[in-house]
């Protein structure tokens, strides 16, 4: 039996810039990401990887085509509705971790939960502590995020992306700013979370080793997915 599609897009078109600088960033991109699978998007800089991620993450809107979460088409929704979907269904991890500097590691993880508003303060604290424990930062809950190392900050970002138990995790070069050891550790962590908790992960990466370790590799060039390869299939 095939896995359920968590996130998909169909014939996405996106133009960036104005007038002479106008670029056709995405040209009819279609993609489906199933739960429990890790997808890598690879390709040279400027090929449209990030544009695809931002549109799939509902941070940007396509000029044509549609995005669906499970069976619901969401690309036509209002800004507020898209924000709500992002909060509930999508977790983001960026290259530069993007933690809130004025908050501790635990508080950073609690920020998406606060917005969702489904847990009490105590429950949010406990969940954030569990998530941080899961990424090996159980002992640094109350440490201000700016006092953590780069690798630790990226692990906090991973915990934060999982805060509202999203169905999809989108990662834009999640290991791009880390050394090899930390890269491997962060990726392994993500991979385990996806497979253990049935999430769908789409990551854009330049790192061939990481791409090779994914279930799917989608190669992009000039705004088009030119090749999609299934690398592994787990039972």
């Amino acid at each position, binding site marked *: 039996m095939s896995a359920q599609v968590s996130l998909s897009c169909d014939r996405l078109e996106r133009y960036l810039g104005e007038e002479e600088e106008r670029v056709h960033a995405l040209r009819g991109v279609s993609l489906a990401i199933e739960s429990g699978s890790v997808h890598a998007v690879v390709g040279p800089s400027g090929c449209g990887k990030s544009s695809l991620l931002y549109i799939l993450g509902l941070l940007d809107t396509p000029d044509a085509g549609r995005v669906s979460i499970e069976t619901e088409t969401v690309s036509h929704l209002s800004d507020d509705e898209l924000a709500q979907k992002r909060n509930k269904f999508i977790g983001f991890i960026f290259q530069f971790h993007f933690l809130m500097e004025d908050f501790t590691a635990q508080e950073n993880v609690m920020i998406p939960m606060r*917005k969702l508003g489904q847990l009490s303060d105590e429950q949010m604290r406990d969940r954030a502590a569990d998530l941080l424990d899961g990424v090996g930062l159980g002992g640094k809950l109350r440490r201000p995020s700016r006092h953590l190392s780069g690798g630790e900050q990226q692990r906090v970002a991973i915990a934060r992306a999982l805060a509202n138990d999203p169905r999809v995790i989108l990662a834009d070069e999640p290991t791009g700013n880390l050394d090899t050891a930390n890269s491997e550790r962060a990726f392994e962590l993500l991979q385990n979370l996806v497979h253990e908790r049935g999430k769908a992960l789409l990551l854009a990466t330049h790192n061939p080793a990481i791409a090779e370790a994914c279930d799917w590799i989608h190669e992009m060039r000039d705004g088009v997915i030119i090749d999609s390869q299934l690398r592994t299939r787990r039972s």
Partner: protein
Amino acid sequence: MTPPLYIALRFLTHRKRALLLSLSGVVFGVAIFICTQAQTQGFSRYFIESNIGSNGALVVRSRFRPRYEPLMVAAKNSKGTTGRRIYFEGITNPNEIMRVSREFPDVISCSPVLRGTVSARAGFENATVDLYGIDPSLHAQTTDILRQLIDGNFDDFRNNTTAIIIGSRLAELLQIAVGDTVQLLAPNGEYWRFNVAAIARAGIGSIDSTRIYSHAKIAQALLQQPSGASMIIYKLRDRNRAPVLASRFETLFQHNALSWQEREESTLQLFLTLRMSVAITVSLIILLAGFGIFNVLTMSVLAKIKEIAILRSMGYRRRDISAIFLWQGALIAAAGSLLGCLLGALMTWGVSHIPIRLRGLLYTNYFLVTWDWQHYAFATFLALVAVFIASYVPARRAAELPPVVTIRGSR
């Protein structure tokens, strides 16, 4: 606590220097506004209290009748019939007017006064004085004369028909004290001798330097006046109703009636102009504080551009982002207004203890201040409006920042 408020609090408390700068602007703006309003209104209110306390909130004086001019046509811009009246000095039937007046619920009490100008002599000193012939009991009920006595005894005046009460500055001028004798010159050239039973200080230079109170019957005989009263002064439950009541009394009694607002119009306008001028100046200080907050919040938006993008990516809506910055403004305004009110009260208290020797229009040894909650409410309102305007633009700018642009730019 809503997520935007929670985040706003954290943003604020982690930028202590900016917070202090914004807060101090609001605190000082509000405090100075309160303090200056307390001072300017203090002098104004003291003048009104003293004036009403001495001259009543309402005065009924000369009788009038419409002039018989059947062939005259009113001018186009004519405001009424006041220009076509014939006045007769004095009040024809004061007891009847007072009896009817007391039927009005707004009237607490009224007192007839026979007024005239005479010369006073004490030793080698002479002065022209404003003689008020009064009924001691009625006058004590209607005015603040008992409170105004700074020396002597009101009962000594009440029980002795040849006794007088003299204004404090007039007493200084004539160099007399309680127990001394003053001679008043009657129109027929005779000097009448009076004992000074008490000295009164109304606090208004023009009253204290000219007024002498005597018994009405004695004043009538001395001034050789046929009427028992040249005016009736009123104490009202609500002094602000004086103009309405004056208008009704004019129609009812056919006597000229004057409210305290009309009587002291020029002085009141002077005080009002002064208050407005100071209020405008101080409002500018609050606006400057608002400008400071605008700068601080704009800088904050620029500094937090990355955080805004993160929050948007985590599902925070535009209005949540906007609320974060509006909350920051609201928190500064609330804390600044509260501290400003406290500082304003402290400054007002301090100013009220500054010694100042005024012996002109008003008599006072200290700065006069008014404690009025409306000053605090208005200063707070002004601060809230200024801060809201100052926060609105940065908040809107923050909400409209496209997160993708920031995230792309950080790559």
